[in-house]
């Protein structure tokens, strides 16, 4: 019973499912940012363009998830803002790491 408590603000939503959504989104973001970082490193892209591509990828994530749930973010996440900023910093650092690593491995050394 305790695991399936209904939220007071949003009746009908189960906390476990919200957590699961959040977890899946985090995993998706992390893997995507690692891949994009590696690809950008291979393509010898430097400077602001790399960050722009990262931003673009996150906007794409937002749109993909949005289309999937028909832009009713309140029904699947705590809020829309929370969905946008969920694990953004973590994935940004992962992106930077892979970008730098691959770029240096191929072009600097």
């Amino acid at each position, binding site marked *: 019973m305790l695991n399936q408590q209904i*939220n*007071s603000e949003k009746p009908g939503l189960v906390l476990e499912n919200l957590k699961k959504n959040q*977890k899946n989104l*985090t995993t998706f973001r992390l893997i995507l940012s690692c891949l994009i970082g590696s690809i950008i490193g291979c393509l010898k892209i430097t400077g602001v363009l790399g960050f722009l591509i990262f931003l673009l990828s996150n906007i794409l994530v937002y749109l993909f998830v949005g289309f999937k749930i028909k832009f009713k973010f309140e029904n699947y996440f705590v809020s829309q803002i929370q969905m946008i900023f969920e694990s953004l910093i973590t994935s940004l650092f992962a992106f*930077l790491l892979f*970008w730098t690593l691959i*770029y240096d491995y191929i072009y600097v*050394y």
Partner: protein
Amino acid sequence: MKLDPQIKNWVLFPLVYVIFLVGILKNYILKLFETDPKKETKVKEIKKYAQKEQKKLNENYQKRTNNFTEQKNNAQTNKQETIREMQAIQRSTRLRLNGNLISKESYEMRKYYLTEPQKGILSNRSAQKAVNPLFDPTSLMPGLKSNLSNILPQFILMTWVNFFFEGFIVVKFPFPLSDNLKKMFQYGINLKYLNASYVSSLSWYFLVFFGLRGVVDMISVWLDKKTVYSYFAPIAKIRKMPTSTPMMPPPVSLSGVRDPTNFLIAEKENLQLYSHKFSVADSELEILGLKTAILDEKEKKKDK
């Protein structure tokens, strides 16, 4: 400018490798600490306790049927009282969580039953017995453990990097950095005209540390799916108020006896602060599609 490939083999990749492995090792060590011998035996204890209680209850029932005047065991009544109080707390939490689905009248009735200052179940015990949880040393241990396990490996790794790889130019960032940041990112390298995007080993360590944190956490969750979302804590922070109370065990006082008095008081306050709003008041009208029409009429009347 090209860097020496020896640096790549002996500094760049080993750092990534070591930090990754330390991250996963830390996860396992934390798990070792978490699996308290107490926790494992707890289930058995509870089962034994339940069986004992069942036996006692049966015996008591027989005794009572035989002899109505026999008095109850004092200790047992105490236990029963604790259980009753815990049930009351759970009940109150449920009321707070789902109270919006019942009408104002029934909500107030339940609230009165629970929080009435003299007769209410939540206010049965006197507040004098409450122990401040801050003075309870057992509640501080888990926080201390997690803090130590976070800081200690980081400290050791930083000393290691600083000691062995000081003054190395390890990495060139693929993005430009301003020259003002040279002191921070090129710590230990005193070259005046070196481009700021060439960076020392310590900065590379920090980038790897922060970059791999998410990856390590993802992998450790994948390795053991029983560690439920250790990293995905923010949602718990947001929802702490309504959900934490029933999940947590009752506070253990210094004497080692479980004492739910604090919880009773806290729960009572929570319930008194909770503002009730009947969320399905207009459901019939909404189903019929009349709600908006009625509102429109009201607005028209107001306008007139």
